């Protein structure tokens, strides 16, 4: 399909560069790219790839825009809060460039649908936020022979590379296994500098465009590390692991597996309260009755500055071992954090160290805000 007059004008700054030119622009128009996730990485990716004139872009997302997304997910605006991300993203993309065909996949990518979805695209870009989906995207790309443009972010730091491209290494060559759940915090737990996904997402977009145009040196076999605080880019060698279970010489994985199980994530069914748990309602009742107990907040001091529950003592999780002396072994202790993860670990630690009456306030201060006191801000 030749370019229309409108497209020639729109892409004129591409067309006048010999490295792109009419031939390159037509390659972009003929290309199809699947973006998994329209969040921090997916937002700049979708916007720039749309502007660049990729012919067909598929979006996979089933999330809804919320306020905490807005400091980085620039494809969504304040008016979009509460809307499906996929709708909000398509609206922005359509405004940027109506020539681009956009496929909606408003589903979670799973072992059942991944091959069916991915097979219809030339290139896959991984902008997900969890280990199971990252391994799933990797395995599906290896099995289908599709390049996987990878990026991930944490706080002030990012990683990017191109996996499974022309005999290059895959994600499993880099990390054979994911960390056990809870050991590596997510962006929701650990935070992320709002600008960071812009940098990493655009590195992914750059690689995607280069792969389509067939120009330059792809980021294959190299892991790019970005450190925003020191403003440093470093590059590490990435090799294909001959023993890789999926792309190695004697691969054992021939089809998609159960990635939740692979990543050690327990299947949802255990809503039964664990011994040592206490609900926010019970804690509120204890406070109202003026029960004698110690109420400990194990979040970080900078979180304490955002909000706190009256009557709590701040002992950040990592300080608990050295501040044990401040706690009375006979006292009833209620521990809370933001969502209940850190406090559960602290309660386990306390119980193992002679504090049998330690209890974990389930759901943390977010639950407190939702059920007891809405004047406590959510963050």
């Amino acid at each position: 399909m030749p370019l229309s007059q409108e497209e020639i004008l729109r892409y004129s700054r591409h067309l006048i560069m010999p490295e792109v030119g009419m031939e390159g622009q037509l390659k972009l128009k003929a290309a199809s790219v699947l973006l998994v996730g329209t969040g921090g990485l997916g937002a700049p990716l979708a916007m720039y790839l749309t502007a660049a004139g990729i012919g067909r872009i598929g979006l996979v997302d089933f999330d809804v825009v919320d306020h905490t997304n807005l400091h980085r997910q620039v494809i969504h605006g304040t008016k979009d809060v509460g809307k499906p991300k996929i709708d909000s993203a398509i609206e922005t993309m359509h405004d940027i460039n109506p020539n681009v065909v956009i496929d909606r996949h408003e589903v979670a990518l799973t072992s059942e649908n991944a091959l069916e979805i991915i097979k219809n695209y030339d290139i896959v870009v991984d902008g997900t936020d969890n280990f199971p989906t990252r391994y799933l995207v990797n395995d599906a790309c290896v099995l289908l022979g599709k390049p996987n443009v990878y990026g991930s972010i944490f706080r002030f730091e990012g990683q990017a590379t191109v996996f499974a491209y022309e005999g290059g290494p895959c994600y499993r060559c880099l990390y054979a296994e994911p960390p056990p759940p809870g050991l590596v915090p997510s962006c929701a737990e650990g935070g992320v500098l709002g600008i960071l996904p812009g940098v990493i997402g655009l590195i992914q977009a750059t690689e995607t465009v280069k792969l389509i145009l067939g120009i330059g040196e792809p980021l294959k076999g190299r892991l790019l590390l970005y450190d925003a605080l020191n403003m440093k880019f470093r590059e590490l060698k990435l090799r294909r692991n001959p023993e890789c279970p999926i792309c190695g010489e004697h691969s054992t994985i021939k089809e998609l597996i159960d990635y939740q199980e692979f990543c050690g994530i327990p299947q949802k069914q255990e809503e039964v309260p664990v011994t040592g748990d206490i609900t926010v309602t019970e804690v509120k009742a204890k406070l109202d009755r003026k029960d004698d107990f110690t109420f400990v907040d194990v979040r970080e001091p900078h979180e304490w500055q955002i909000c706190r529950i009256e009557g709590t003592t701040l002992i950040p999780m990592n300080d608990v071992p050295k501040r044990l002396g401040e706690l009375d072994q006979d006292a009833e202790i209620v521990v809370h954090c933001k969502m209940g993860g850190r406090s559960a670990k602290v309660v386990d630690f306390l119980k193992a160290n002679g504090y049998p009456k330690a209890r974990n306030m389930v759901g943390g201060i977010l639950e407190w805000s939702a059920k007891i006191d809405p004047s406590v801000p959510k963050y």
Partner: protein
Amino acid sequence: MAKVLIPTPLRQYVDKKDVVEASGASVAEVLTGVVTAHPSLKKQIYSDEGKLRSFVNVYVNDEDIRYLDKEKTAVTDADTLSIVPSIAGGR
């Protein structure tokens, strides 16, 4: 002393530093020096059996030690080690 670059998720275990130094003639010796000085880092990068965890990669300069001499890889004071854990954030 060899330099060891510490990634963001692990800085909380090394007094918030982004680089630490330790002496040693091999990767194992340098890392032992680091975890001796910062004991809480140990369980983050080593399993209970004392093996480097599989989601933590160690590089000497830009080369992955799995393709050198693993933890026996020789290290000089001029080398920089990097600990690079798996991160998954994207949203």
